[in-house]
């Protein structure tokens, strides 16, 4: 394999690029959010604060120091942890420390960790659903190509791409929970507390998030399978009398495997955006809902911390997608 060195180099370059991207994002996010036109100290203190109190809050929040000093403190906290004096006592915030919430003085890292299981339950569960639904639909329409089934599936898939997450979610919630009363309105239950209740309560959020994503997988699966089906070796299999079911299920599906995995990593970013909507709609106490809350009360450390954490996952997923593309198709220019 002469190309392997090139491939290893590609992965290495991509890895370095990822780290640089993360660094750049952290600077951009930090600078953009802390050069806010709004008066953070005033907002944090509340509308009835006197100017002297506002000034005190500004000092507590280090808002009087130059921006690069604050960014440096921020990076220091991320790498080494930080001590915060909260008036009477000193609180240690271990690395990776993302600072303290302006609103509740809670450590942002800890806050994110408590919210993360909810968001991961939502996104990972939905991922399973959209992979099954999407690939299944794609296989079915490739198998039934040119027939009524394919036309119907194509129409449904198109409708799926055109419906915003929150519209599907709203309608599902009203029909399933409100009218038919098949399920109670979702209320998050910890997986460790009661796995069965956990799944039942997440069923609608999973579906809402997954239906839209499934549509793009259905399109991709169908088109890759049709491409494979048009290849010479498939014609040879057919000539040897291999059954259609085996050709579809074993050979054509194999061709769709790599692009589907790559798209899955690639779609992570949009799924995270969809998760914010789903969590808000269903009242799931995840990162998305917390972010919307933090945004509304201008709790900047929480906003910055969450944007960075989400950005970290998305950038990582994109890098994985790139590598998977390269693995799937070595003809992609390694640059």
């Amino acid at each position, binding site marked *: 394999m002469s190309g392997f060195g090139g491939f290893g180099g590609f992965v290495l370059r991509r890895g370095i690029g990822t780290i*640089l*991207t993360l660094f*750049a*994002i952290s600077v*951009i996010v930090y600078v*953009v*959010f802390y050069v806010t*036109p709004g008066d953070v100290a005033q907002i944090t203190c509340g509308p009835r604060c006197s100017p002297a109190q506002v000034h005190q809050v500004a000092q507590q929040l280090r808002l009087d120091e130059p921006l690069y000093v604050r960014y440096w403190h921020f990076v220091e906290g991320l790498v080494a942890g930080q001590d915060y004096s909260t008036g009477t006592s000193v609180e240690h915030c271990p690395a990776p420390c993302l600072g303290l919430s302006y609103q509740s003085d809670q450590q942002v890292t800890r806050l994110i960790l408590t919210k993360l299981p909810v968001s991961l339950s939502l996104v990972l569960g939905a991922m399973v659903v959209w992979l099954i639904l999407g690939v299944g639909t794609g296989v079915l329409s490739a198998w039934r190509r*040119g027939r009524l089934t*394919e036309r119907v599936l*194509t129409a449904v898939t*198109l*409708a799926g*791409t*055109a419906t*915003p*997450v*929150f*519209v599907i979610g*709203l309608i599902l*919630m*009203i029909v399933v929970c409100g009218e038919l009363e098949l399920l109670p309105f979702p209320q998050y239950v910890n997986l460790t507390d009661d796995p069965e209740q956990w799944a039942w309560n997440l069923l609608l959020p999973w579906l809402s998030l997954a239906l*839209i*994503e499934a549509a793009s997988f259905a*399109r*991709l699966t*169908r*088109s*890759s399978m*049709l*491409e494979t*089906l*048009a*290849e010479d070796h498939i014609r040879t299999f057919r000539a040897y009398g291999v059954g259609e079911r085996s050709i579809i299920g074993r050979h054509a599906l194999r061709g769709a495997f790599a*692009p589907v995995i790559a*798209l899955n990593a*690639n*779609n992570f*970013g*949009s799924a*995270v*955006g969809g998760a*914010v*909507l789903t969590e*808000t709609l269903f009242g799931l106490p995840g990162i998305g809902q917390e*972010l*919307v809350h933090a*945004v*509304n009360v201008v709790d*900047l450390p929480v*906003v910055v911390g969450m*944007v960075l954490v*989400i*950005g970290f996952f*998305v*950038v990582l997923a*994109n890098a994985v997608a790139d590598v998977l*593309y390269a693995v799937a*198709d070595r*003809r992609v220019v390694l640059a």
Partner: protein
Amino acid sequence: MSEAVTKAAAEAVIAAQAPGTDPASVPGASGARQFWRRLRAQRAALVAAVVVALLVLVALAAPLLTALEGQDPTTYHPSLIDSARGGVPVGPLGGIGGDHWLGVEPQTGRDLFARLVHGARVSLGVALAATIIQIAIGVTLGIAAALGSRWVDQLLSRITDIFVALPLMIMSLALLAIVPAGFPRPVLVTLVIGLLSWGNIAKVVRAQTLTLKGLDHVSAARLSGWGTWRIARRELLPGLAAPVITYAALLVPQNITVEAALSFLGVGVKPPTPSWGQMLTAADVWYQAAPQYLLLPAGALFVTVLALTVLGDGVRTALDPRAASRLRVGTGRRREHRADTAGEKETSS
């Protein structure tokens, strides 16, 4: 969210315009007629185009339509609200009647028809303006990266990568929160969407420009001493038209969805300015008393995004009929075989 679809489409565009593609399929001024003929040949795209045209008409004529009805989108009608029953509209079907064609909003009594058509204005206006910003930035940076020195290309490509990596929803959500309340929200939403998500189009334009740069007529122009600006304008822009138009057609529905989502979350377009997403925020509580309060904005969003998506697919097929069925990179070798596979419906992939 349709981000993923757009991403796949971007790849299709790159693949479609990859070296080896017949340069004749890139439409210049003379290709316009061929483009219309191919677009008209697709029934679904034609229907979608009519729907989109109607929507644009409604959006443009919104003040006229509401004047015709005798209402406006912001006036409260407390007399039409039954406060004893928690604020549901008075009368059957959520207050539908000659004065209020689609009924009134629960709790406030604002006219639903007026809010809906003015919402179309916001939705389409924000989406189109944001698309123009995205295209302007993407095309400029894409061409600059492709024509600039190695160093410029590296720098611009890295910046582009960062913007591709930023999760759009999350960043817009966060950015919209820190801007003071006085700033006009629709403009703000437009700017945030436009300035954040031009990364993919810049990539598409860069790749296409690199391809065009190698073509004979561009080399000839360079050899005859034309300046970079003149080459970009006269020789490159016509060749970029196809991928850019294709991409723009796919960006519009995506932008509509993002605006609706942001307004739904309460950080986008804020009351009293109506927006479809924002109307849905409060609607779920009222679905029994005034189902149209939920169904109208939801239906409007669905029809608009669907029509624009189908039209976008049609535009893509019309600009390069073979591109439509390719949704991934690196299938160039297999492409020849595709043409003769059992009459694939290109519009559907």
